[in-house]
Each structure stands twice: as C-alpha cells, then as structure tokens.
C-alpha cells in the first residue's frame, strides 16, 4: 500500500546529518562511504558521519521515501558491486529545497541584523 506522504514543510527542520546526506545525494547516486566523504568535504571536515549515524539516517530516509536504493550498479571493475547506491527521490528533492529555503530565510534575517560575517 502506498504510504501517504507528508507536505515537505512538515518534515522540517531536518537534522544536520539528514540535511547533509540529502545534499550529498543531490548531485547523483552515492554509496555509504561516498556520502560520508561528500559530507566531510562539504563541511570542511566539521561533520564526520559515523557508520551508525549514516545508516540510521539512511534507514529513516528510505522509510519516509526521501531516498531510494538505486537499481543501477557501476561497472564491477570500477567499484565493489556489493555496495548499495542511494538516490534522491523527487519528494526528497522537494524536502531538501524546502529546507534550503527555510535556512535562506534565517540567513536573510541574520543579514538584516548585520550578523553575517563580513565578505572579504
């Protein structure tokens, strides 16, 4: 039975780890380790997901339909074929966009209050 999906705004705010996982998957399919590397790179190493945090979040994201397991596997010569790749769904992208919009609003409020760091 198709699970009824919530309005993207109802899932906000996302936790930092979920937000960064969705952000990492926005460029294309990635496996667990790939997501970890992408998140560490995005955040200049400030967020390093542990295996438990990563797969706990993946489990919940799969459950709520924000990501799916990708059917296509890369060439076995290029990567370990046992790895599972994950893909952002259209619904996941909507939720991610809604979160980015929410953060942008907060940043513009901070800008109005002159709280953002000065551009060099």
């Amino acid at each position, binding site marked *: 039975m198709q*699970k009824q999906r919530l309005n993207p705004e109802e899932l906000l705010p996302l936790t930092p780890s979920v937000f960064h996982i969705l952000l990492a998957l926005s460029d294309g399919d990635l496996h*667990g*380790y790939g997501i*970890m590397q992408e998140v560490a790179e995005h955040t200049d190493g400030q967020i*390093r997901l*542990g*295996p*438990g*945090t*990563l*797969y*706990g979040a*993946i*489990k919940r994201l799969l*459950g709520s339909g924000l990501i799916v397991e990708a059917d296509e596997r890369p060439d076995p010569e290029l990567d*370990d074929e*046992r*790895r*599972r790749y994950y893909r952002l769904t259209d619904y996941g992208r909507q939720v991610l966009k809604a979160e980015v919009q929410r953060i942008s609003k907060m940043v513009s409020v901070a800008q109005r209050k002159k709280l953002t760091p000065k551009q060099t």
Partner: protein
Amino acid sequence: MLLSKRLFQLMLLAYPREFRLEYGPDMAQVFCDCYRETQSQGFVTSTTFWLRTICDVIRTAPLERLDTLGRDSAMKNLKANVIGLLACLVVIVVAFLLLGYGRRHEVASILLFGHALDAIVTAGIISNLIIFPLVMATRLSPFWTALWSLVIVNGALLLMAILIGSRVDPQFSFSRVSIGYVVSFILWLGIHWIWSQTKNTTEPVA
C-alpha cells in the same frame, strides 16, 4: 585490519538484529574504508577515528533499539492488552458485587439475572485466564482465540451445571441456566471483539 574489522563487527551486536541484518555488512564495509583511510595518517588520527566510532555506536545503538521497540507490535499492543485486561476485571468485579448485593438484599430485579451474573463471573474468570496468556504469548488471532475459548468454557460450565445442578438443586431450571451462559458468551465475545479491534488498530501503519 582484520582484527579491527572483527572488533567493529562485535560492536555491531549493540544494534537490534533486524537493523544489523539489513545494514551490518554495509556498516562494516564503510568502517573498513574509513579505517584504511586513517591508517596512513598516523597514530593520533587512528585513535581519534576509533574514539569517534565508539561514540557513534554508543549514541546510535540505543536509538535504533528504541526505534525497534517502538515498532514492535507486542509493545504497541501492550496498552491495548492492559486496557482489555482491566475491562474484563471490571466486568467480573461488577457482576460479582451485583450478585452479592442482590442475594444479601434479595433484590428481585438483580436476582432475575442471577444465572447470567453467575455465568459471567465463573466463565469470565476461567476463559480470561486462558485467552489473555494465549494471545499475549502467541501470534494467535485474539478474536478466534476468544471465540473458541468461550465456546469451550461456557459449554463445559453449562454441561457441569446440568449434570450437577439438576441432581443437587430441586429448583434447577435448565432454560434459565442455559440463557445465563448464552448471555455470558455474548457479553464476553463482545468485549473480546472490541479488544481485538483495538489491537488491530494499534499495529504499525508503515
């Protein structure tokens, strides 16, 4: 590397079985990838990596356990079971008190239903002592377990009442006793039907 992997696999035992079966191999693979990466970066990085991994397990394993418990139908049904058990106890106690009051004060309107109240108390105690443990300990359907238990218990009690009561009590009325057990059967079946409906609606949606 092998020893570290084995150690991490041991740490995975902290997670619920269901989660471990689904994501354990992936987690071990990710751990090995990260471990390989830190190996070339010296002792401090390696130690930090281990500390971070241990903290991650300590932080996430209880969350996954709680999540599994939350989805466990037995736990979800606990509330329904307690409510059902309490409802049955209340019915038995009320019927017992009514019967006692009616007999002491010879209240005709209560005594009119004496046989039914008697059957409700006796059949209620015996059948609920069978139904609740059976349903809670097994995966049997609550409604069908209740139905068959009530048929057997009410039938057996009616048979005993006919065999013993007709010999001991000269005023024994077969029809009244039978109606009493039929009323008891319908009442208890109704209560157990409501209970089974409550249990079904508390099953996980996903």
